[in-house]
């Protein structure tokens, strides 16, 4: 559904962030994008929804070329690709419900959003999503009153309210503790399966990438150096991506997290429990 051809991004400072990227993502696939800091992971997903303008190349989503779209058309395309951010990027001074409903901004007119008079169906769906991520009780709380994990859930609900077909996820777990990280990744994974969403997930944590992605792409200095299944990712490839290091601990970690994922298959409910947080 998403195809990148020869995408290159050179920043005004002269830094080459992406160099000739070719990538194709089928419907419903969850792809993890790994690589060292500064490898261009964030730039890549920001080029897709054009928060960053690619310097050259083409990006095609379901047959539409995204580069060179007019402002109005870009708005329509952005609706179908929702983004989830590192450090949540909620609007701190708005309430949880306002933040979630802002996922509909691409669909409603200015005055409706200005007066916060969203269509009833949107409000129903927003509340259903808040229930789904376990935050229905926080409806009218200000976003900055929530804990990290709770904020990321609001971010996920906002993204899903856009009714997207593609999720762009930028370091969803970078500011979360290991347990919350796993819960958030599992939630994203489940929601992708439920709604048949494709996702590109930038992630630093190789063990999490292995555990939750269908496919892993390794980026180094703006170029793709690995593209394969989690099983194919071994110490040698990690060295290609990140450089020389003792990778034994990461592979050991994988076993530790494997049993962590088993209860989720049987009982998805515990991950929605928020009592332990804050």
């Amino acid at each position: 559904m998403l195809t990148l051809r020869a995408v290159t991004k050179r920043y005004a400072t002269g830094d080459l962030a992406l160099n000739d990227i070719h990538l194709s993502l089928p419907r419903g696939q969850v792809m993890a994008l790994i690589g060292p800091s500064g490898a261009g992971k964030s730039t890549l997903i920001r080029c897709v929804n054009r928060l960053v303008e690619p310097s050259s190349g083409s990006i095609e989503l379901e047959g539409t070329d995204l580069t060179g779209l007019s402002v109005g058309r870009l708005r329509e395309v952005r609706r179908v690709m929702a983004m989830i951010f590192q450090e949540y990027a909620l609007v701190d001074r708005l309430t949880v419900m306002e933040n979630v409903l802002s996922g509909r901004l691409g669909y409603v007119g200015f005055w409706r959003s200005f007066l916060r008079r969203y269509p009833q169906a949107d409000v129903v769906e927003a509340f259903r999503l808040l229930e789904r991520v376990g935050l229905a009780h926080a409806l009218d709380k200000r976003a900055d009153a929530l804990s990290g994990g709770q904020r990321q859930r609001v971010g996920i609900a906002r993204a899903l309210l856009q009714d997207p077909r593609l999720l762009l996820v930028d370091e969803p777990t970078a500011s979360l503790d290991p347990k919350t990280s796993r819960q958030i990744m599992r939630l994203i994974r489940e929601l992708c399966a439920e709604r048949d969403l494709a996702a590109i997930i930038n992630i630093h944590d190789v063990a999490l990438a292995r555990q939750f992605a269908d496919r892993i792409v390794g980026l180094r200095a703006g170029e793709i150096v690995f593209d394969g299944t989690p099983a194919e990712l071994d110490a040698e490839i990690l060295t290609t991506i990140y450089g020389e290091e003792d990778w034994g601990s990461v592979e050991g970690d994988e076993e530790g997290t494997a049993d962590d994922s088993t209860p989720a298959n049987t009982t998805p409910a515990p991950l929605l429990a928020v009592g332990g947080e804050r």
Partner: protein
Amino acid sequence: MSAPRERLAEQGEWRRLPFIGDARLRWLLALGVLLYLVLALASISVNWARVAEGMSRGLNFLAAFAQPDFVSRRSDIVNGLLESLTMTLTSTVIGVALAIPVGLGAARNISPLPIYLVCRGIITVSRTFQEIIIAILFVVMFGFGPLAGMITLAFATIGFMAKLLAEDIEDLDWRQVEAVRATGASWWQTINHAVQPQVMPRLIGLSMYRLDINFRESAVIGIVGAGGIGATLNTSISRYEYDTSAAILLIIIAIVLLCEYCSSHVRRWTQ
């Protein structure tokens, strides 16, 4: 250069790097500033006889504070005050309303370059001239009275508010803006959903602050004929009715204090 410092640090000898590296230049600069200060102070000629004479007049003025006269010019004072308060409120409201679009335009991160330059230009013009100079111009244009005063204060408010608002917008948390833009929001929706929530507390705080600046300024520009309590004050001083002047000044102080108290409350409440 760094090697000897490292060797000294090894022995526990370490000093913070000086702001100006060259020791000779550092001392020369300090000496130069001191010399200039001494020469500049020496160039001020003081007429001590005049000061001695003026002291007693000044004391008279201060003594009047012990017996302020609120009564004999009561209606003048009340009229002046009402005029000033009206001027203050209307000019603040109009000024802030006009400053918001200018401020948005003057924030480099959300405005295209041509609009940015125009809005920065408006701010510069408004901030270059002190209120009194603008007031003199408007008094010439619109005649004596509070209309000139109101326009002066509104004009000064635009420069002040727009500049500070633009700076606040330039400092805002860009991730929140990105997140709202990524949902497919239009420019106005982004302003309303991502920018406004972030700058609103400061906008309200600054408006309250500007309200009490405008009240104080209204007393000053009255002296050049722009109406309000300043005009009343000016009249009383030129008639040597220091007791009435004292009463007016006390009222101004009380109102400014009241404004200050209210605005700090409002600011805390909007955080």
